[in-house]
């Protein structure tokens, strides 16, 4: 029991640390007179939102999607394309982004979830790359130069504005917290148990009476929609969207964040996103060829602690698990 308690304690401390950092970043930026930090942390939290959504299918569902950045792209391009036609209504943009993401996830999930293992990884990646090249080929929307967004989303009220960096920051923060809380509820719900059970032993779940394909598909759609929210926010931070946002390496980075933070832990993706960024900053200061160190380092972390940072928390002081 004491071990359990201390694990619980360590998790709480980490949660306070991570969430607290995000909550206080704009204030710190104000004190330090470094407004740059606000956008930096905004970006970080958008990564975190995408990673939280990926964790639902990857961490809890065992579906290793190597194309999740597609949904960031869908969210961002929805805002971008609307803006291209001078439509800035936030609600319209949001509803469209959600609908498009859900629809694409339904189709792509319907195809890819019929496969398992390496095939699933390859198909999710291939489908995303397909859309990536589509976005490059459409000159109307900037092809690989991307699309500049002249105005941010408009809420139709003076109470809150996307143009105010601090307000925008806390909106993203709230969305992230909402995603965290939703995941927390979800994995303890009936649906969550079915998804986790299917990861653990699919044949058993089928024999129990669960049509696992449907549940996995619903989960896949849910993750896509949540990730698209991140995309909508991203377009508002950057005032720019380009095909780069859904390049396959982005999907790979998302996987790393989830794995680094700890698969199947609620806060893991946020910790992962934060540490991922800190490490890349740190290594890129040492040398120009920082990817050479960063890559092996990540592999080492995964080998030493398969359950990532969250896994490290549960190691007892004596050293044995």
């Amino acid at each position: 029991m004491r071990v359990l308690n201390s694990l619980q304690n360590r998790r709480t401390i980490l949660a306070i640390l991570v969430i607290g950092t995000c909550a206080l970043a704009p204030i710190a930026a104000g004190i330090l007179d470094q407004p740059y930090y606000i956008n930096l942390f905004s970006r970080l939290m958008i990564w975190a939102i995408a990673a939280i959504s990926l964790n639902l299918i990857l961490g809890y569902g065992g579906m290793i999607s190597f194309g999740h950045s597609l949904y960031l792209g869908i969210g961002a391009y929805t805002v971008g394309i609307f803006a291209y036609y001078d439509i800035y209504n936030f609600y319209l943009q949001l509803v469209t982004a959600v609908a498009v993401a859900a629809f694409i996830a339904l189709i792509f999930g319907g195809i890819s979830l019929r496969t398992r293992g390496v095939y699933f990884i390859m198909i999710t990646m291939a489908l995303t790359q397909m859309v990536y090249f589509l976005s490059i080929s459409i000159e109307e929307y900037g092809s690989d130069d991307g699309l500049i967004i002249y105005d941010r989303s408009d809420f139709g009220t003076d109470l809150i504005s996307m143009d105010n960096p601090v307000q925008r920051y806390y909106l993203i923060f709230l969305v992230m917290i909402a995603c965290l809380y939703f995941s927390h509820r979800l994995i303890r719900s009936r649906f969550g148990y079915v998804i986790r059970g299917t990861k653990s032993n699919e044949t058993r779940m089928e024999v129990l009476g669960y049509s696992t394909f449907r549940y996995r598909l619903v989960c896949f759609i849910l993750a896509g929609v949540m990730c698209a929210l991140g995309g909508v926010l991203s377009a508002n931070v950057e005032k720019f969207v380009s095909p780069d946002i859904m390049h396959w390496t982005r999907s790979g980075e998302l996987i790393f964040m989830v794995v680094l933070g700890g698969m199947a832990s609620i806060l893991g993706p946020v910790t992962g996103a934060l540490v991922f960024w800190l490490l890349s900053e740190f290594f890129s200061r040492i040398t120009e060829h920082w990817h050479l160190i960063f890559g092996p380092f990540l592999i080492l972390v995964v080998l030493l602690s398969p359950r990532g940072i969250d896994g490290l928390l549960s190691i007892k002081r004596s050293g044995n698990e």
Partner: protein
Amino acid sequence: MGCLVSRDLVMNNTLLKITDLNKSFGGVCATDNVNVEVERGEIHALIGPNGAGKTTLISQISGILQSDSGEIQFDGIPISHMKAPARSLMGIARSFQITSILREFTCQENVALAIQAHFGHSYNMWKPVSSEDKIQNRAVEVLESIGMGELRDTTSGDLAHGEQRQLELAIALAMDPKLLILDEPLAGMGRIDSVKIVNFLNGLKRKFTILVIEHDMDAVFTLADRISVMVYGRLIASGTPDEIRADAMVRSAYLGVD
């Protein structure tokens, strides 16, 4: 209502009826024109040497494998075209020879998940399952009935082998099935655990219809009302324990050799 009554009238005592069932893997005939009937309330044992196709047969009944030809009727309804989940919801539960539990979950969670499947849809993403008293109470009830009440919060992957076999049985029971299919429930169990399970299964007699594969002949002849013998994919005999014991073909093909 009238429909129900008339169906009751025509409904005979057969719960599961398998007709001319075939399944081959490559050139190997794993199920060769098998005909079996399982009657309501009986314990029907399926015996035969290793590789006789017993597990293949019950995998076709539970829907994990699709048959090449033939028909399976359950409760008077053809189910050959149905997938495993649909068959499960109709009331067919099975346990596995190789323990198939959810190792990351506690015993209670394992059993609760079996109950949940037969208890409305599972698309609720908000309400914690742990707060669904009906499911949890029933789960504890099932675990206690099999003598695992105290292990309810133990992660099932940490259980001893015998206990995992018991949990496997509890999961199948929790589905409250019309037909309980057990694939070697005593596999790898020690003597004491075996006796416990045999006694427990004996207590289920008449309450459940059970189709059981088992190699332990003492257990089979203690429990079974009827026995079917499979050799090389064929059903060579079917009858009461006494008939099977007396059957010359069975003796030479199986019991004698053993």
